[in-house]
């Protein structure tokens, strides 16, 4: 246990991670096009003294809005600036691609957010694997993983150099494979020095980038054992790069379906399942495995070849992080249940969206959070309620008080910047040199 407090971010997957989040939410179909929606969610998170609001992102439309309303409809930094104006303490973490942005423009935009929010901003660096993105930027296909991560490494270095340059007033020069830059940004140091850096992506390249540069990592972990292992891997990566362990927080995603009794939670989940298109679970389980599962017999044993080690991991187009977590999770279930473990069971257990899922009472949720935190598998979580606002409301009103009573979570905000709240080393003249 590295910290005395758990880090809790709310991952606002617009109306929620459930495929029928819109129906569960009871909100208008166009709710996620309004600033008022995100301002309300931000204030709700602040009522629960959560650490930060997190936004995932893809620079491409993901699903047919006529079939699935309530997905992302606004650009993430404009959402975060909206939340910044509506809140006082909440951290603001935005996912932005290193493949489909320019480092100078991105550095300036996030640094502006940091100024506008009084030092509450962070950038989640991803390389983007969504195949729909490339065409939007004039490419016929996305660059392969190795190229994307080479660019990401150089991109992150350039952004950090620009931020340090802004904090110290120094001009920077950067010459590399992808970027040639010279000068400095038109802004000075922010109240936290400069924004924090977050990383998501669980391939070896992703974990190395995190260990070298990130202040937090968003991970997908299905089991405690895998969580423990990867936690150590990334922390040791940081140590290898000469960074203190506390400068990087490990934050797995956690899907929550909460009811006041176990049966009520279960009913909430079953209701959603009946409403949703049965294809949704096939896609959510199949996509990270890189396979179309739709025609496979539901009650046959889960096809083992889908879980085999990849001949060439670099050629795998999806996220290796998501795949590895899933493969390991399903293998563990097969080991526990024997060969009879079926596709039907796997769809139920793992077709919810690539992250660990809890269906239960507020106590159940608090127990898992505490268990992972005390065991050293997580410094906190990226929370993913099935649907907003109810899923966040019940977390704030029912789970947060339990964690407070267990002395695992704050009663009120005491630090003004996100850097202080996360306990990350300050930006010093030395670090900035």
């Amino acid at each position, binding site marked *: 246990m590295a910290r005395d407090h758990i880090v809790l971010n709310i991952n606002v997957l617009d109306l929620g991670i459930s495929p029928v989040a819109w129906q569960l939410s009871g909100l*208008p*179909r*166009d709710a996620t*096009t*309004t*600033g008022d929606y995100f*301002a309300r969610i931000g204030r709700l998170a602040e009522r629960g003294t959560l650490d930060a609001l997190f936004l995932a992102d*893809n*620079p*491409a*439309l*993901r699903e*047919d*809005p*006529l*079939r699935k*309303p309530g997905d*992302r*409809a*606004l*650009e993430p*930094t*404009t*959402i975060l*600036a*909206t939340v*910044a*104006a*509506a809140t006082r303490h909440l951290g603001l973490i935005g996912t932005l691609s290193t493949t*489909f*942005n*320019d480092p*100078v*423009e991105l550095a*300036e*935009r996030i640094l*502006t*957010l940091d*100024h*506008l929010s*009084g030092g509450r901003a962070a950038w989640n660096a991803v390389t983007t694997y969504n195949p729909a993105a490339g*065409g*939007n*930027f*004039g490419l016929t296909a996305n660059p392969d993983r190795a190229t994307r991560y080479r660019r990401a490494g150089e991109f992150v270095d350039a952004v950090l150099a620009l931020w340090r340059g802004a904090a110290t007033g120094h001009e920077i020069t950067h010459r590399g494979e992808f970027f*040639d*830059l*010279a*000068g*400095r*940004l*038109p*802004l*000075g140091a922010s109240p936290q020095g400069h924004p924090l850096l977050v990383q998501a992506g669980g391939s070896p390249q992703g974990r190395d980038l995190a260990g070298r540069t990130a202040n937090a990592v968003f991970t997908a972990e299905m089991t405690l054992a895998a969580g423990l292992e990867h936690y150590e891997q990334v922390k040791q990566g940081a140590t290898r790069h000469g960074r203190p362990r506390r400068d990087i927080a490990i934050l797995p995603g956690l899907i929550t379906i909460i009811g006041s009794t176990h049966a009520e939670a279960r009913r909430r989940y079953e209701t959603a399942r009946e409403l949703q298109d049965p294809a949704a679970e096939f896609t959510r389980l199949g996509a990270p495995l890189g396979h179309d599962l739709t025609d496979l017999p539901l009650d046959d044993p889960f096809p083992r070849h889908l879980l085999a080690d990849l001949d060439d991991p670099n050629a795998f187009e999806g996220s290796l992080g998501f795949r590895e977590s899933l493969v390991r999770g399903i293998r563990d279930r097969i080991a526990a249940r024997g060969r009879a473990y079926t596709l039907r069971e796997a769809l139920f257990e793992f077709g919810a969206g690539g992250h660990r899922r809890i269906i239960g009472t507020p106590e159940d949720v608090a127990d898992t959070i505490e268990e992972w935190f005390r065991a050293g598998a997580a410094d906190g979580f990226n929370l993913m309620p099935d649907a907003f606002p109810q899923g966040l409301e019940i977390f704030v009103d029912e789970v947060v008080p339990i964690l407070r009573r267990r002395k695992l979570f704050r009663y009120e905000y005491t630090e003004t910047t996100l850097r202080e709240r996360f306990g990350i080393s300050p930006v010093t003249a030395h670090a900035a040199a």
Partner: protein
Amino acid sequence: MPLVLGLQIPDDQLARLTRTGFGEVPELLDASGVGYIVLGADRRAAGGASLNPALLGTVFARRTRGLGIVAAAAPQRDHPFNIARRLASLDHLTRGRAGWLALRSDAHLALGATRHGSWAPAGGPVGAELLADAVTAARALWRTWPLESLTRASAAIDRTPDVEVRYADHTGAFATTGPLNVPTTPQGEPIVCWEYEPGDSGHLGVTDIAFVTPRDRAVAVPADPAVTTHVRLHGESARLRSRIAELADDAWGVTGVLVRIGLAELPGFLDTTVPALADAGLIRLRAATGAAGDAPTLRDHLGIPRRPDPDPLRFRAVYAPA
């Protein structure tokens, strides 16, 4: 004819107000009836501190109800897909009060950028021609996802062609397939503004408003009737009123003025000059916004209709056969 009034406050003066939350500047501008504020215009030439215009605009959006908000962005380090996405988002967050000041370059972000920038091919067009391509790409993207797909009750059931999401399929220096992952906005799409430079006339057809200096006014009047002209003036000038009177009178097709004013002079300008100009019938202010938040869109206030082209129904549908 009374003119629309836009204001521009020097970027570095606004940036200095960040820690105090910009004082009451957004609220004062909103209450004054001024048509719009332009953020980031100084980025054409390097200067002092400057906040990212779209994000500053987003903060102003939360604190205003009727004020138009025009944010600068250049397709030099910023791909038109990202610009289109951010400006359309600002347009939703303002409920239809956003504009894009399309700059060919952003001196604050140059840091060694080439003229064709980070995304356009080397050896292709640069300058006004490249910017015009970026605007054309953005406009196509802005029309790919109809808002009616989310607002019309029967949309999901009837799937009429006008609610289908479509590809933009823009080919050019900034090729982009789309669709944009932001729907069309309450005013259709943001208003596009362009800072006129000598030689630009052949490319102005893509824009809604051309900002011109008094000196360039005669030569810069666009041939295209869809493009209107707003003349840049200095708010501190002793001749401000007579200039506005002259422009309001003449037959040059000028429909607005963009007045640059320092923060120190702003309160006096809003309290005294603006009402006097309005009383004299020289400028046209926004009507006060009702409690229901039923403010007119920027497009309504400017009287600029949405262009017929490109017609999205000619684009390929993404999720259903056309």
